[in-house]
């Protein structure tokens, strides 16, 4: 799930007015954005009211299921061609993926209509499992979990240190937001100690992260692991 939070109205108005956009079409999303309290029908109607009070004209609105799916956007926006033709901008109350997917779909027909984000997508400190739990993965391409008692130093340590704790933790809490964050390295130390594996830490040579591995590999970009729609589009065109 991607968590989004509404931008302040002033910021949205500044975005729109910066390019002189008055007639708007609003988009919401019934997926993560609705669950975040930003992109459901209620929130979109609230946003509509706020914008109208600020002198904007809302020529239409639609809450789609899953704005991250371009196929659904294409189908979902079909009945709104007339509204989109008179709109000067689309304002999407959803995550950064939804905004990009909507912008890509609208650019397929004509690049005239800009899509503005009504929200910020909030960092969750790494990717979570499909059944979202507390564990985080940065998809770093160089997993150290075998050396760190199964606790990721990149997501558990604010500084993403891989060679042990810094000097900043106090009573087991991180120097950044001590009320909210435990020292990740202290968690690693405690678990390794319980496992009788502290020598692992003691004997490890200095570890260096290879940040080049954090870029998705070239070969991945050409597969459906990168984007399911790649193959779908190929299939459609080959038929």
């Amino acid at each position: 799930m991607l968590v989004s939070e509404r931008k302040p109205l002033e910021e949205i108005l500044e975005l729109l007015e910066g390019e002189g956009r008055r007639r708007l079409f609003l988009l919401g999303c019934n997926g993560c954005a609705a669950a975040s309290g930003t992109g459901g029908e209620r929130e979109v109607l609230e946003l509509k009211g706020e914008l109208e009070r600020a002198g904007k004209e809302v020529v239409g609105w639609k809450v789609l299921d899953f704005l991250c799916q371009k196929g659904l956007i294409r189908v979902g926006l079909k009945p709104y061609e007339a509204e989109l033709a008179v709109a000067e901008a689309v304002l999407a109350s959803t995550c950064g993926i939804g905004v990009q997917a909507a912008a890509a779909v609208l650019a397929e027909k004509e690049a005239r209509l800009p899509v503005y984000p009504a929200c910020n997508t909030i960092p969750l400190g790494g990717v979570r499992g499909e059944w979202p739990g507390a564990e985080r993965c940065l998809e770093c391409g160089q997993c150290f979990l075998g050396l760190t008692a199964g606790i990721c130093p990149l997501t558990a340590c604010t500084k993403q240190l891989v060679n042990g704790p810094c000097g900043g933790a106090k009573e087991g809490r991180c120097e950044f937001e001590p009320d909210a964050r435990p020292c990740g390295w202290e968690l690693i130390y405690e678990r390794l100690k319980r496992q009788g594996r502290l020598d692992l830490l003691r004997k490890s040579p200095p570890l260096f992260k290879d940040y080049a591995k954090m870029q998705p590999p070239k070969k991945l970009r050409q597969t459906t692991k990168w984007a399911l729609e790649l193959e779908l589009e190929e299939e459609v065109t080959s038929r």
Partner: protein
Amino acid sequence: MKLSELFRAGKFVVTSEVGPPKGTDTSEMLANAELLRPYVHALNITDQQSSVMRLGSLAAAHLLKERGLEPIYQLTCRDRNRIALQSDLLSAWTMGVENVLCLTGDYVSLGDHPGAKPVFDLDSVSLLATAKRLNEGYDLAGNELQGKPDFCLGAVVTPGANPLEMQLIKMERKIEAGAEFFQTQAVYEPEKFAAFMEEAKELKVPVIAGIILLKSAGMARFMNKNVAGVHVPEHLIAEMEGAKDRVAKSIEIAARLIREIRPLCQGVHIMPIGWERHVPAVLEEAGLAPAK
């Protein structure tokens, strides 16, 4: 001169530190350095301490070296990636810097630019290993250098850390990576420091004990609450509280601490935090002045 040569000569090494200014006016920093000159073997130059943007420690170390003072160039991993860190180390050597203190660095949120991108590409351990690699004539990518440095590398350790075991493991890793000496976080409890040194002495690396001049009881309480690894015991806070002359009491406490820990370690590092003018009195009362 490298600190390692002083240790080899059996000297009890005295260091202190100066902080580069916020801006380009170096007069106060240089005046503080001159004031400390007769009393210390070398001076640490802090690297944008507490993540507050300042004049660079490299330029400041160069200014001290030009004046015949021995800088200990502090280098943190907070603001530079491995390319910049290696480059700055090479630059430092060409400017005459011989001693480097390798640190991870505070998180950016502690300073005056909390929205800055935190780097931490390397950390204290991997930075030490990197500097050692440069000393050996190669960069991190394995390329041969055209002319190589020969730094004496230092690191920090927190004797009052809890858990201490983790601290000792990291100390060991820093030595393995290239640390030839350690400077410590502030020490206020000689017994605890003795216990730490008992563990650390097996590692056979010189330890320079940190001393922060206590300016007031309030400062002591603030550090107890906010500074990692620092603990000022209640009896010292009471001493400061009851003192008629805070400066005289502060000097007395610092000098006493130094006399108590001197047999346990290989040097002291005075962190004056604005009280540079009182450092000479501390060292004189501790029987350590003038240095050399």
